[in-house]
């Protein structure tokens, strides 16, 4: 009845089919095969990645929940904790950008809610092809609409993110969504089906035919014409229902009768039941006749695999069923007892009295295949700087204009203006600075959040790139006044069946692991998205790091914008003039090559420690790290995002602490990491100098904050003298113009 190659229909290999037959000791039934298909998909099983992920450090003093649950959790002190996680929704967003992005946000919100937490912040990390092409504009516009629609309607602020444009993402846009939520330590909920005999409820939306095989077919395969044909399986989000689900779940938790909870995401009911049972070492018996359905005539197979949104699986104490159902009904939601926890470790599926599936939960989860796929280093384009003439001083103005006016470095306001950045009344630092900062009501402190990952750097040297991603995310949190404590990561890669992709993956992980250890930021969880390949083209290896930092005193929140004319501008850290993989070479010379900037983890740790202490000591007024576009762009951004009356600077490049003799382009636009531009009142300079010396960090006093003009000298030669307003118009107009919305 299943044909002679039954595995193909569910995306398994003949070998994998044999494996599940061995585990069952018989042929799988159609429903069972469907369950194996989704649970053993790359997306759900991590079969190509799990052997390597274990290399990432995951333990640390503040970590209350590491990898393995729906989200990681760190301690905020005084009985409060923060749950946070990042997820990808790349392929769905490529097929239908609005719904794909919206359901991505909905999914990550439910991961946080599942921990019993109240979501307080979303960040979105986006990658598209160049927006001079209509399709990429369509994707950017649609994805931003979708992220905004879900987050705004749900009522969780979107406080940060990033957007990159590279040709490699044209066929495979990346849409990664990060969410953080607060929960009392003693109220953390786990996705575990504890206690045989406990009733199992399905709550939220009704179950429909949406997204059948989303996990196995969309998220776990390279992307080609066939994907077009799968369009009917696109899920539709309902943020309104999502918000009601949040309220109802919080009430359910408050009853004290909630034993465990798990959202229904990829692989729907199959995954939620198998995961919760496997985590608790129990089984679950499901009676599909009780599942509230949206459409008639759905088969058991469809019910088990449906990826209908806004649903939760709840495990409750016996006798609490009706109370729970009443809560959901009051919020206008469906809720029904669909089964119970068992002791035999099996997921047993009944319908119409018949048993349609009986599979050990472990077989669907722990026993899934794990591959150590072959890996082979790949050559990367070298950089011959002798073929690229250095900038003359006369070039600097035009070059800066060109960079600030490019979609790569232009202002992101067009994006974040479409997001509610404020709901929740916690947002202290909004999008537009290095990290977002939120206060914690009724407490002295707060949190800082940033997402970062430079795919170009990772492509040129995956190991260094992986370390740089962690370092930049930590730096962005540090310059905002916080102490980085932990991170979640979303690893976006190409086809793992290609040895060079596996090599990239392993290298990135090694690099990240080293940086995590050096900076003391364990990885509490994340997500892997493979098969970002379209018609043979693979994306850059793109690890996106979502970093969490803590502020003991919300008063330490520090923005990147200059604050007051007359303040001194100090550059912390040495400039090495690293041009490899820089935004400058890409934008102005169309070159992506050479080694990415070298990262000295010890120097990185020192400069961040120095910056944090300076902020805590009240020595600095603004702080901004040097990233894409290097020193020149960092200085310009600080002026362009400055307070009124402080929108300019005058600096002398001769004061920049350098390693060796540098070209002008390397000095201004090289992307040497571990550098931070801070401003301080003149009176605070000695203290700052002394502090830097104590930390062994080079500190160059470049000049001071002015208003109205951006001016650079080198000795007494004028390098740059531009009106701030002119540059501001170019910078702010970059994306609107590219989107064809204004001249």
């Amino acid at each position, binding site marked *: 009845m299943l044909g002679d190659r039954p595995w193909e229909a569910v995306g398994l290999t003949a070998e994998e089919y044999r494996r599940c037959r061995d585990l069952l000791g018989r042929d799988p039934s159609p429903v069972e095969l469907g369950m194996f298909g989704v649970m053993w998909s790359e997306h759900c099983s991590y079969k190509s990645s799990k052997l390597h992920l274990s290399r990432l450090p995951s333990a640390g003093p503040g970590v209350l929940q590491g990898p393995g649950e729906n989200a990681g959790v760190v301690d905020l002190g005084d009985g409060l904790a923060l749950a946070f996680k990042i997820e990808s929704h790349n392929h769905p967003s490529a097929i239908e950008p609005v719904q794909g992005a919206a359901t991505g946000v909905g999914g990550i919100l439910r991961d946080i809610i599942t921990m019993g937490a109240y979501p307080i912040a979303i960040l979105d990390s986006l990658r598209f092809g160049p927006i001079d092409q209509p399709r990429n504009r369509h994707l950017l516009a649609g994805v931003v*609409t979708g992220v*905004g*629609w879900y987050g*705004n*309607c*749900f*009522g969780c602020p979107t406080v940060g993110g990033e957007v990159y444009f590279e040709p490699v993402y044209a066929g495979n846009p990346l849409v990664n969504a990060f969410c953080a939520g607060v929960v009392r330590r003693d109220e953390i909920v786990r996705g575990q089906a504890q206690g045989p005999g406990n009733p199992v409820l399905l709550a939220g939306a009704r179950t429909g035919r949406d997204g059948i095989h989303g996990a196995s077919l969309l998220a776990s395969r390279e992307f080609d014409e066939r994907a077009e044909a799968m369009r009917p399986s696109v899920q539709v989000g*309902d*943020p*309104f*229902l999502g*918000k*009601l689900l949040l309220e109802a779940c919080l009430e359910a938790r408050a009853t004290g009768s909630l034993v465990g909870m798990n959202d229904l995401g990829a692989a729907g009911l199959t995954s939620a039941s198998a995961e919760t049972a496997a985590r608790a070492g129990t089984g679950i018996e499901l009676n599909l006749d009780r599942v509230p359905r949206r459409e008639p005539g759905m088969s058991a197979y469809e019910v088990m695999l449906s990826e209908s949104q806004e649903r939760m699986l709840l495990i409750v104490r016996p006798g609490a069923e009706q109370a729970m159902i009443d809560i959901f009904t009051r*919020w*206008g939601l469906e809720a029904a007892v669909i089964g119970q926890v068992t002791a035999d470790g099996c997921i047993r599926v009944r319908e119409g009295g018949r048993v349609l599936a009986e599979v050990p939960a472990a077989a669907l989860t722990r026993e899934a295949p794990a591959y150590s796929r072959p890996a082979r280093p790949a050559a990367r384009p070298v950089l011959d700087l002798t073929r690229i003439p250095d900038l003359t001083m006369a070039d600097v103005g035009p070059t800066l204009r060109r960079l600030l006016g490019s979609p790569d470095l232009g202002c992101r306001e067009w994006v*974040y*203006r*479409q*997001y*509610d*950045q*404020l*709901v*929740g*009344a916690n*947002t*202290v630092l909004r999008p537009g600075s290095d990290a977002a900062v939120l*206060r914690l*009501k009724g407490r002295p402190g707060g949190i800082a959040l940033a997402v970062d990952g430079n795919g170009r750097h990772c492509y040129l040297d995956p190991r260094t790139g992986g370390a740089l991603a962690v370092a930049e995310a930590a730096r962005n949190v540090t310059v905002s006044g916080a102490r980085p404590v932990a991170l979640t990561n979303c690893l976006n890669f190409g086809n793992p069946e290609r040895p060079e992709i596996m090599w990239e993956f392993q290298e990135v992980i090694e690099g990240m692991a080293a940086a995590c250890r050096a900076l003391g930021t364990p990885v509490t969880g994340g997500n892997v998205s493979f098969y970002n390949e379209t018609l043979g083209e693979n994306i850059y290896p793109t690890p996106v790091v979502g970093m969490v930092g803590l502020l003991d005193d*919300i008063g330490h929140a520090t923005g990147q914008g200059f604050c007051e004319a007359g303040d001194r501008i100090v550059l912390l850290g040495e400039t090495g003039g690293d041009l490899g993989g820089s935004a400058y070479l890409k934008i102005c010379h169309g070159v992506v090559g050479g080694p990415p900037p070298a990262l000295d983890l010890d120097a990185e740790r020192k400069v961040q420690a120095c910056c944090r202490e300076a902020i805590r000591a009240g020595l600095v007024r603004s702080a901004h790290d040097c990233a894409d576009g290097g020193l020149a762009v960092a200085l310009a951004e600080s002026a362009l995002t400055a307070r009124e009356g402080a929108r300019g600077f005058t600096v002398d490049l001769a004061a920049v602490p350098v390693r060796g003799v540098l070209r002008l382009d390397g000095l201004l636009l090289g992307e040497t990491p571990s550098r931070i531009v801070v401003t301080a009142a003149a009176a605070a300079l000695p203290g700052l100098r002394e502090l830097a010396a104590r930390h062994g960090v080079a500190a160059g006093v470049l000049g001071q904050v002015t208003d109205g003009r951006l001016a650079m000298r080198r000795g007494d030669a004028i390098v740059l003298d531009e009106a701030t307003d002119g540059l501001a118009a170019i910078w702010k107009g970059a994306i609107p113009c590219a989107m064809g919305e204004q001249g």
Partner: protein
Amino acid sequence: MRFGVVVFPGSNCERDCFHWVEQVAGRPALPIWHGQADLGGVDCVILPGGFSYGDYLRPGAIARLSPVMRAVQEHAAAGGLVLGICNGFQILLEAGLLPGAVLRNRSLKFECRDVFLRVEDGGTPFTRSCRPGQVIRLPIKHADGNYRTAAAGGDAPPRVLFRYCEADGRITAGANPNGAQDNIAGLANRRGNVVGLMPHPEVSAEPVLGGTDGRLLLTSALDHWKEQGEC
């Protein structure tokens, strides 16, 4: 003075409103469930922002049918204070408690940013502690704030409380974030006891959040109440 905040399915600024009232008035506000037939005896009822019923069909269209809205109608008719913020304002429009309606923003996009507002009328319980002509700064965050008076026009112009303006108070097209007719950001009924506005005072009432002008509406209401000597 007792404040209440109505909770509709899909409201998402109700917690911010509770916090706001607590911060400014110093006492908690009473939660009022959309299914309730009465307002629990509050003196001022706040309809919070958010996406009641997902903004499906039209913002506020479904919420205005909730049982609680009859109580709000009666409270308003009896001269009780009613404040609608963003979606709350849209609900008041749909319910006919304030004149006019909103369309999608001119940009067709959700717009989240700070705007300057010129206070046009300091004579209502919610604006009395502002100087007429005073310029305040509050954030907006909405996709449907493009205010229109009735198509037919015929009826009297609305009692405008706030207009979008430049930092110096000039009313310009450039200062209009959503295309609203005559830069209208907020208005009142003739009597002045029912007020609605698109901007969000509740998230801009503490220094740590970067603005305090949001306090004005509540301090006004409190002054008004003291004067009535009913505190």
